[in-house]
Every structure is written in structure tokens, then in C-alpha cells.
């Protein structure tokens, strides 16, 4: 029991993109939830093989972008009609045309903040340490090897059975990784 608590999961090494692609399809079909694939370069279609849902980042960007745009317009409305009205070129205090650039820029600014920080948040970054770095072989993930990690918190996880399964799926090396 104590061993299971200290266990992060199992790490399987594959030698090619197509091997990990087909292995991912099998892991997905077996119903694992807490697992991930690690590759040295983007493998096209891997998100489908893993059964990943579309990211929610676009929705964060939409909400942030709309808040930025409406906030920008509101700010300028407040300044120019309430806080410090100035007559400029005999135009109305509330001249929406003049406010469009700032409205647009704030919409874009907050939208891109939403994209960058939303992505970091969903990826739980910045992260100081990750258990997979315990594995010496895992360094090859930035070079020429492909990895699948299945976490021990997955309900279907079993140290022996899951390792065996990954070997059968074509893993060239399988190891257990501690927390």
C-alpha cells in the first residue's frame, strides 16, 4: 500500500512516432483518464489518438477579449463624460469613433493575456518539479524517444498489469516512477 502511495505512475518508452500513435489509441480505448504522451516533436493527429477533448482556451480568450473591449469602452465613457469631460474639435463628449482604437487594443490585450495565462493555468505551469524527471531515460524525450506515462491515481491503474499492457503495446522499455 505504501508503495502505491509513493508511486507516480508507469513510464513506457517507444522508438517511433507511429508506435506511440497506435499505442495511444489502445490506451485511450482501454478507458484510462490520467495519462499523457510525451514526444520530441508534434505528432499530427496524436490528440485524436489520445481522445483529447478540444481545449477550453478559446473560451477563456473570448471572455477575456469581450471583458477587455467592454472595459475599454466603459473606461473611456467614464473619463470623457463623467470624470473629466473635455470638448475636443467640437465633437460630442461620447464619440464612439474616437474610442474604437483603445477598445480594440484592450480587447486584443486581454484576449492574448487570456490565451497565454489561460494555457499556462490549464497546463498547471509554472511547475517547479515533475516526477517524470526522476527517470534518466526520460531525458531522451527531447531527442529521439517517445513516452507514454500513466498515473497511479487513475482508477484503472495497477502497477503490474499496466506495465504488462504497455509492453504488449510495443514499448521498448517500461519502468515505474516514484513521486
Amino acid at each position, binding site marked *: 500500500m505504501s508503495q502505491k502511495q509513493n508511486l507516480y505512475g508507469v513510464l513506457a518508452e517507444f522508438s517511433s512516432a507511429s508506435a506511440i*500513435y497506435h499505442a495511444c489509441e489502445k490506451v485511450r480505448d482501454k478507458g484510462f483518464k490520467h495519462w499523457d504522451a510525451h514526444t520530441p516533436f508534434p505528432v499530427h*493527429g496524436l490528440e485524436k489518438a489520445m481522445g483529447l477533448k478540444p481545449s477550453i482556451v478559446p473560451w477563456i480568450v473570448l471572455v477575456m477579449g469581450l471583458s477587455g473591449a467592454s472595459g475599454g469602452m466603459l473606461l473611456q465613457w467614464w473619463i470623457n463624460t463623467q470624470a473629466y469631460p473635455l470638448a475636443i474639435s467640437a465633437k460630442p463628449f461620447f464619440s464612439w*469613433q474616437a474610442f*474604437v*482604437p483603445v477598445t480594440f487594443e484592450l480587447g486584443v490585450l486581454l484576449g492574448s493575456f487570456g490565451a497565454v495565462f489561460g494555457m499556462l493555468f490549464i497546463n498547471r505551469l509554472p511547475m517547479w518539479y515533475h516526477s517524470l524527471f526522476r527517470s534518466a531515460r526520460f531525458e531522451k524525450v527531447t531527442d529521439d524517444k517517445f513516452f507514454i506515462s500513466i498515473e497511479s491515481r487513475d482508477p484503472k491503474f495497477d502497477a503490474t498489469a499496466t506495465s504488462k499492457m504497455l509492453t504488449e503495446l510495443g514499448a521498448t522499455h517500461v519502468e515505474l516512477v516514484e513521486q
Partner: protein
Amino acid sequence: MSSSHAKAVNPNDVTLPQTHWLRKIPVTAIVLGIVCLVAALALALGNKDKVEALQWSFHTSYIYFLSMALGSLFFVLVQFATRAGWSVVVRRFAENYAATLPVFAILFIPMLFGFHSLFHHWTSEEAKSDVAIQAKAAYLNEQFFTVRGIIYVVIWSVLGVYYYRNSTRQDTTADKQITFKLQKTSYVSIALFALSVSFCAFDWIMSLNPHWYSTMLGVYYFAGSIMVVYALMLLTTFAVRGGTKMGNYISTEHIHDLGKLLFGFNVFWTYIAFSQYFLIWYGNIPEETEFYAMRSLGEHGAHWLPWSIALMVGHFAVPFLFLMSRHIKRNPLLIGLGAAWMLVIHYVDIHWLIRPNWQSELNHFGIFDILTLVGIGGLFLGTATLLLTRKSLLPQKDPRLAESLAFENL
């Protein structure tokens, strides 16, 4: 990685089958086009007002379809200049459309006949006592106008035919040097294109109102042109995919990218349209504000205000929200609907640019507009489809074809 990708092109798949419906289009469209233009001329001849109405309608339709051919030429030039890989499978469509530019060179001639009714502001007797017009007389005069027009249509025709000829020649020779040659030519061509399109917009659209000036109008016309080309190419893709095996080569990924560019350049159009309005609104100089005043204020403006609002809503707000979603861009029916809508609203844009300059009781969308739209549209689409049926549907020996076939959005 997906197994759906074709690795190479089967030459039998990339010619239009003998029984395909598009093979009937060239003759039908060109005959229909000529019939409509002749019918419009027959309706108008003998009545001075109607001749003038025909000239304005012809000019509007001409500028509308010209923008598609010009946008296509720009698309082709940019693909070569940037050494684009993804676009090879759809590039031939744009090459076909760009190669119709000699047709527009011929259709330029009626503009010279209609010269005095279209551009009467700076050719009439009153213009001789107008200081602002006289100051521009070195540029705005009939002889120089004609010479410039001929230069534009010659540049476009030569470029359109040159790229079509060389690219189709590569289908048989498989000579990679052609790609490098076209790439080298494209840099100079883009400069020529930019200048000729800007000045054509100044001459053929801006000078309809000789007092008004906007240095952005050239970019405005260019922005509409490149936006509409993606709509046109999407619809062409769908027309060609049905009944052929082209669906194996032009995948959802390419549709998605054309949709992204349609969305992006529509936003670019909005950006340019607003920037032009914004500067004129801020500066508040009578010669400049006249353009927007006659489209929104007073009795004359009351007629055009709905058109102005239609552009804000239909050219920006609705397409912006509709085309934003990835799911819509990857759904052939929905993106097809969006593309068809953009073709319609682009006409509204061109009509809105040109027609408020014509002071007449007859100035409304009418029979001459329909006849000239079908007429010039028939000649344009008929010629492009004729080119489509005669050669391979995609540049089958292009060195970057494999890259295009394997293209995927992340």
C-alpha cells in the same frame, strides 16, 4: 500521421470527368453572358438616360468581378513569393481566375465609351471654373486616364497569363526551375500589382467624385479583393470536389485554412474601412467628409444609409462572429454559406462605393445591374471554368505538392 492523407496524386483523379456538370458551364456561361450584355445594350440604346444607367451598372459590375480576378492574381503571387507549401492543391483555381484578366482588358473598352457620363465631374464645362479640379488637371484628364487604364490592364493580363502558362507547363515538364523562376518574378510582380491596383482604385472609383480624396482607398479596394478571393476559392473547391476524386487531395485542412484566411482578410477589410472613416471623421475637412456625408446624411444620404449600415452589420459584425468558430470553418456546408454571403456583401460594398456618385432618378439596383452582373459574371466564370476543364485541377508536378497533401492544422 493520419492514414487519410494521399501520398501522391493519381493523374486520372485530377482532370474533370467528361460527364462532370462543370464541363457544361463554359459554353452556357459565356453565351448567357454575351446575350445579357447585348440585351442590356439593346434595352438602353436610343434613350440617353438609359445609356447612362447602363454605363453605371456596367462599371459597378466590372469593378466587382475585376476585384475577384485581381485578388486571385495576388493570391498566386503571394504563394510563390512566400514559397507556400500548404496551398499548392488549391493554387490552380486562383491561377485560372487570374488568367481571365485579358477578358477584363477587353471589357475595359466600354469604360472609355462611358467616360463622359461616369467621369463628367472633371470633364464638364463647370469643371473648368472649379479650382480644386483644375489643380488636379495634370492627372485627371482624359488622355492620361486612358493611357493609365491601358497600362493597368496590360500589366494584369500579362501577369495572369504568365503565371497560368508557366504553372500549367510544369504539369507536363515537371521542371522545378519553373517554380524558382515564378518565385523570382513574383517579387517585382507584387510591386507592380500594388501600384496598379491602388491607382486603378483612385482612377476608377475615387475620381468618380473628383473633390474627394483618400490615400487609403487603394488599400480598401485591395482588401475587399483579397477577402472575396477566399470565398470564391472555397466555393470553387466545393464545386470541383463533388463528382471527382479531388476530395482525396483538398482536405478539410485546406478548407479550414481558406476559411481562416477569409476570416482574417475580412477583419483586415474592416480595419481598413474603419481606419479610413476614422481619419476622415477626426480631421473633419469638408472635401473628405463629403464621401461619408453623401452615404449617411440628408436626402441623398437617406437612400444610402441602409447600405452603409448593411456593410457594418453584414460585412463585419455577422461574418466576424459567424466565421470565428473552428467548427464552422471545418463544416463544408456552413463555410460554403459564409463564403456565398461574402460574395454578396462584397457586391454591396462595391455598389456602395460607386453608385452614390451618380445623381439620377434611375439610380437604384435594377435590370441593368442584373444584366451586367450576369453578363460580366458569365464571361468571367465561363472563361475561368473553360481553363479549369482544359488542364489539371491542381499543379500535379509542383515540387511542393507533397507538402501540401500532407498539410494538417495543429
